[in-house]
């Protein structure tokens, strides 16, 4: 059955820079925003953009991730003809190999893509926080009659050295791609979201697969080769909120962003909802002694303490006399009485004893708290 467009969602990353958060968990499955997992944003974008044919490429510690995704029901991706398909590494008659890079992961699933005989392939990543209409991106791609369209976002000039920067002509044609340049000529950073004409891409992927020395990566190998061949690569400017939550610092920042009043991304936006599994806990119980400011709180919480700029996932208890500042408490956390937390990310089911003090100073990376380091980080 032919489909105009197939979406490939890269969800196999190890997320090394997230430390403890990804110890036994694929990065896209890391809890986010009080009730979601990171991948929910990309999947909800698919639903809201009416992208119905989605392959999810997984490889690293996928048990929780697969359980979360299932057949894609929360995102209306459980469909008869297409819908969501999980694409894990596999073996064939001549053995198998792991996904070696982003490009390699796509070409190893050529059979999946070609089942739908698509004109276009969208490649997105499962570890960014943003609301984006991929259909608008696709229309831009068609209008420009491009071979490749790369979604870009303006970043502050001083941060350009942290990103893959695209240099374009006035009409957004890309003539150069610079990975983390020291003297950037542009502040348009790639968001890692690409649309390709499938036939064109397939040729490049097949060539690249033969190259022993290639990293089989879109940014490092495929796109530079296409630019060198003078293909039609265009940039598409995205001007909403977008955040790569690839480090503990940025993961924490993205949460603080969610608490801002004027953020362009809102979890309460009825026109662009973010979908996930729902838990069955009772509504949160806010006690007599509770004070809650600038905070997000989910079902099943019992709050007797004081929250400021904090986020409580489902089923978190905060006892009397405790003060939680700028912290993120994952599901099932139990905070005893008279605890003080600041800039702390507490992992699932950790119990913090009465009177504990745990804080990261403003210049430090926020502390990720698990049962293993609980004693070590308590002041």
């Amino acid at each position: 059955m032919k489909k105009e467009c197939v979406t490939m969602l890269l969800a196999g990353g190890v997320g090394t820079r997230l430390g403890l958060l990804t110890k036994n968990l694929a990065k896209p499955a890391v809890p986010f925003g009080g009730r979601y997992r990171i991948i929910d944003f990309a999947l909800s974008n698919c639903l809201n953009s009416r992208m119905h044919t989605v392959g999810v490429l997984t490889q690293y510690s996928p048990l929780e991730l697969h359980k979360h995704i299932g057949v894609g029901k929360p995102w209306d991706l459980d469909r008869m003809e297409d819908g969501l398909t999980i694409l894990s590494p596999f073996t064939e008659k001549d053995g198998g190999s792991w996904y070696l890079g982003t490009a390699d992961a796509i070409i190893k699933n050529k059979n999946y893509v070609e089942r739908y005989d698509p004109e276009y392939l969208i490649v997105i990543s499962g570890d960014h926080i943003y609301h984006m209409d991929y259909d608008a991106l696709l229309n831009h791609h068609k209008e420009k009659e491009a071979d490749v369209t790369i979604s870009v976002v303006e970043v502050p000039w001083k941060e350009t050295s942290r990103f893959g920067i695209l240099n374009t002509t006035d009409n957004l044609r890309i003539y150069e791609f610079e990975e983390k340049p020291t003297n950037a000529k542009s502040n348009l950073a790639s968001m890692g979201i690409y649309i390709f004409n499938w036939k064109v891409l397939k040729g490049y992927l097949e060539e690249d697969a033969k190259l022993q020395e290639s990293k089989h990566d879109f940014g490092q190998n495929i796109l530079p080769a296409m630019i060198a061949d003078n293909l039609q690569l265009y940039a598409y400017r995205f001007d909403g909120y977008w955040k790569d939550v690839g480090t503990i610092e940025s993961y924490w920042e993205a949460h603080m962003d969610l608490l801002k009043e004027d953020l362009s991304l809102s979890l309460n936006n009825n026109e662009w909802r973010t979908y996930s599994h729902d838990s069955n806990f009772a509504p949160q119980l806010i006690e007599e002694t509770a004070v809650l400011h600038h905070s997000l709180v989910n079902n099943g919480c019992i709050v007797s303490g004081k929250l400021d700029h904090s986020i409580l996932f489902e089923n978190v208890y905060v006892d009397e006399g405790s003060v939680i500042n700028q912290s993120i408490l994952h599901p099932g956390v139990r905070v005893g009485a008279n605890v003080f937390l600041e800039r702390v990310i507490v992992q699932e089911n950790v119990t913090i004893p009465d009177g504990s003090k745990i804080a990261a100073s403003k210049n430090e990376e926020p502390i990720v708290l698990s049962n293993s380091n609980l004693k070590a980080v308590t002041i």
Partner: protein
Amino acid sequence: MVRLLKGVFRIDTMMGLINLEHEHDFLNELTYFRCGAAVPFAGRFRMIDFTLSNMAKSNISEVAIFTRNKYRSLMDHLGSGADWDLDRRHGGLFILPPDWNDPTDISKGDLSHFHNNRDYFERGKSDYVLISGSQFISNTVYQQLFEHHLETGADVTLLTTTYQDLLPEHNGCIKVKVAEEGSVASLTNDPKNPHVFSGVYVIRKSLLLELVDECIADYKNHFFMDGIKANLNRLTIQSYHYDGYSSIINSVDSYYRQTMALLETKSYKQLFSDGEHVLTKVGNQAPTKYSGESKVTKSLVATGCVIDGEVDHSVLFRGVKVSEGAVVKNSVIMQRCTIEPGARLENVIMDKDVTITKDQVLKGAKEQPFVIAKRRKI
């Protein structure tokens, strides 16, 4: 035989039946357009969720619902039963509205449901039926009740509980006097007897159908009253005592009282023990957002709310907006209501999608909360 090796009871030989026929539409404005079982309760649930979840968590894999009127919102809520893990190839959820066309039918009351669904009961593979209404709110599983039923070899086993403080809502209930070893001696409306029949009971399916036939032949209209209570001497009726947290809701008064009771931490933890026991229709709300101005105390708050104002001793359902300077006290505010700046509400029960405009003041009494119908703008 249902008793297998080493005390394993096969609860999949029992089906659930939620019989809404004789429940009143008790909640004034809130039950003009929905039956009592579909009334929102406790911030994110509907009344029926408690009974249905107890059945689902007991591994009862087939549940039928008798309903006659105002069942549309119940159907919307229950859908395919997937949210209770009841969308199954084998068994599952069967909502049975009164769509029947037998000109020879003389049955009345809930007996007409049994009569017109006889095929359904005969086709099913269950040997036992667990029957319940929707007004007994509890968090339990029925395994032990079923085991008790099998072990005593009774014809019928009633789930009973004891309320030391008798409240007006218990007046409407059947009271149980128990003889030796749990055997039921009498069923009366004695206002002073604290032993209350919960409306939940187990009966062998073949006996159920036999009694149904007798009742119909005798022009009766109430299965429990006419088929069971009236045959108290003929049948062996056992009681099984439940001593967990529970409440009975059959009036505006009891609805309000039992809602407010859940603000007590102890009651909350008892009713919602076991984490995710009470299942309900899946929603998609963000976590509730508290702004820098919010002041919330002793309240139950569902997800999707945005709170800039003051909330005290109240229950907010999903997606309620309390604006700056607004005050909500001792009130129950249902889905997607908006309280505009400066408005004040006290002792109010407000159905969903209501907007209270700027600086509006509404105040009911504790003994008589002010009930507001849905989709108003006041």
